């Protein structure tokens, strides 16, 4: 049954790119109000709650969590993403706090890079809602694994800013005693299995953590964050197939920031949406607005629920955007023709921090002043972390051979 759903009360401009990506039609009525319309085929009219949620929060731009998952089964049954969870004020404010921590952390890194204090790193700015929304749906006992653009994931999972910053400074008080650096933050004590500099390389690892959960009859899940570029790696496809065959409690969270360094996913991905690939692995594929932390939370919470119930993996594609260059130090890439400044500007209008703040304020959950205080606190924490990192010593020579093996045996 085709159902046309309208969202009323849109304010401000809506990016043509956005409407194109989500196949949302925007039109104005005779009173000049903006409407968005999209048609879905529903088997579950409960899906309408998505849109009710949008209306309640008076979201300025429709939170498109639609286009939603398809589970191809022999019966042809489809399941859809639904928006049913009530999010507490505490959780919303926690998400805001963690997003601000990531944002300030990376703005500070940019400042320190410009001052020559740290080397080039890959910034997550613009994508914060993905990690934070997803991790808000996880427990401390759940595991995550990240990628090369991965300051955001550990911070979203609850990592210590001081230890993260010290690691990027290459200091002994860093998470990895200075042996990993920006691309290898890890904190096993809160389920952060580590980031990977090799694109897609952490996908099988997260799958294996989920295998352990299943073999031991535990209820923890694992989630892996990877990019649109990684989605073309064999490791990704092999892991999704393996996880589906064995019904493993793993969430494959593809952060489609649309460019692998300079190459658009539209030039490298053979399907319209990366989430469409879930069909090939007989798991739900969900396309989520990755700028929207609440949508990310909702999508992830449902995937977690499936995973904990033994129903297997889910592929979540979070459509998002990298506001900055591929990495600090590669500013010249921006001047090439791989993306237009106007496109960057359009996406900046959908800054995930602005969207979450607006949702919180518009719904009466918190005041603008409360939200500002969250940002200010995060800023102060980051300043403190930077000072801590600066004052931490470099690892001395005695660390060089340590940690190659579990035992301190001579290897040569």
């Amino acid at each position, binding site marked *: 049954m085709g159902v046309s759903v309208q969202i009323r009360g849109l304010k401000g401009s809506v990016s043509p790119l956005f409407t194109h990506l989500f196949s949302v039609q925007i039109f104005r009525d005779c009173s000049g109000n903006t409407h968005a319309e999209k048609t879905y085929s529903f088997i579950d009219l409960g899906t309408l709650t998505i849109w009710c949620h949008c209306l309640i929060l008076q979201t300025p731009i429709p939170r498109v969590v639609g286009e939603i998952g398809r589970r191809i089964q022999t019966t042809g049954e489809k399941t859809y993403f639904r928006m049913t969870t009530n999010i507490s004020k505490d959780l919303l404010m926690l998400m805001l706090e963690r997003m601000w921590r990531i944002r300030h952390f990376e703005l500070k890194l940019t400042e320190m890079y410009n001052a020559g204090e740290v080397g080039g790193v890959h910034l997550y700015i613009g994508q914060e809602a993905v990690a934070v929304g997803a991790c808000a749906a996880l427990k401390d006992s759940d595991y995550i694994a990240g990628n090369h653009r991965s300051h955001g994931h550990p911070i979203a999972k609850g990592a210590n800013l001081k230890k993260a910053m010290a690691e990027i400074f290459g200091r002994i008080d860093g998470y990895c005693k200075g*042996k990993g650096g920006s691309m290898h933050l890890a904190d096993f004590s809160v389920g952060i299995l580590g980031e*990977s500099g090799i694109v897609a390389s952490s996908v099988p690892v997260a799958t294996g953590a989920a295998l352990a959960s299943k073999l031991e009859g535990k209820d923890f899940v694992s989630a892996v964050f990877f990019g649109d570029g990684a989605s073309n790696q064999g490791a990704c496809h*092999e892991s999704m197939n393996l996880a589906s065959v064995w019904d493993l409690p793993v969430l494959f969270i593809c952060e489609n920031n649309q460019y692998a360094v300079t190459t658009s996913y539209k030039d490298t991905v053979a399907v319209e949406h990366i989430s469409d690939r879930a069909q090939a692995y007989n798991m739900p594929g969900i396309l989520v607005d990755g700028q929207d932390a609440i949508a990310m939370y909702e999508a992830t919470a449902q995937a977690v629920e499936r995973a904990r119930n033994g129903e297997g993996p889910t592929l979540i594609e979070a459509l998002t955007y990298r506001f900055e260059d591929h990495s600090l130090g590669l500013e010249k890439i921006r001047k090439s023709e791989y993306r237009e400044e106007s496109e960057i500007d359009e996406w900046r209008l959908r800054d995930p921090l602005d969207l979450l703040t607006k949702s919180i304020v518009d719904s009466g959950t918190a005041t603008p002043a409360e939200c500002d205080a969250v940002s200010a606190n995060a800023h102060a924490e980051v300043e403190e972390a930077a000072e801590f990192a600066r004052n931490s010593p470099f690892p001395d020579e005695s660390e060089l051979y340590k*940690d*190659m*093996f579990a035992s301190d*045996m001579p*290897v040569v």
Partner: protein
Amino acid sequence: MTEKMFMQALGMGIAEEMRIDPKVFLMGEDVRASVYGAASGLHDEFGDERILNTPLSENGFFGAAVGAAAVGMRPIVETLTSFMWVGMDQLVSQAAKMRYMFGGQATLPVVYRAVMYYGGGSAAHHSDRSYPVFMNIGGLKIVTPGTPADAKGLMKTAIRDNDPVIMFEDGTLLGTRGEVPDDPDFTVPFGVANILREGTDVTVVAIAGSVPRALAAAEEMAKEGVSVEVIDPRTLVPLDKETILNSVGKTGRLVVADPAAKVCSAASEIMSIVGEEAFWDLQAPMQKVASKQVHIPFSPSLEKLVYPTSDGIIESIKKTLG
């Protein structure tokens, strides 16, 4: 003690450890049917839960083993050396490097069992002896049992070890027989070489499938009055260099027999260590008996020319004697 085939000894080691530790499980391609032999009977005893047939996805399941190990399981992965190339990213970027890269946070008790088939007309894609490649990477323990007893004892140690281990199971040895201790507490430590035959004139260090060939060569040389000491290092990482250096100190002559290809072989590393640390003990140039630096040809007339043989070891021993 019971006489067992090398292949059975490997399986005994696995089964004993699986009985002791419920966190140990085995996965790989066709392991339930035990196509390669060593896993025979394991599926009957331990069932689907602990013996997992995988898809043909080496990168996927090599990495899944890393992830399972990282959160407390003790996976054993069965594969062939030749298929390890397919999963190299997970072996190198994750299994080998995670612990160091994360400052010691990751403990990865995973065993990769790499069966080395060669010498049977399988041609270049199925005849790899690749352990030197992994010695070079670091972070991986490299085990090359040369006798059935060591096959069992080293397997058990590998499973109990808290680091990633690659067990290179030499296909030319799988059918060999020897006395194997039945004691479930029997293990063979890593980093302790085995002096298989004591001698005073020449030291022969023999790796994996070279072990019986070296012993045959020593027997032959004894008939000529030459006393050959045969040492099996058993593990290449860690390497028991003391035993080798002590032996060279006694004999003054060294031959290393290694089924791997000659360039940057395990033999190369052993000779380099002896050159650096015991040069003045040497009475003659060291000799390397490794595989020819070619891909493995299919035709038996060519393949038989490639690998170290007893005759080749004898020839090298004689060279050291002048």
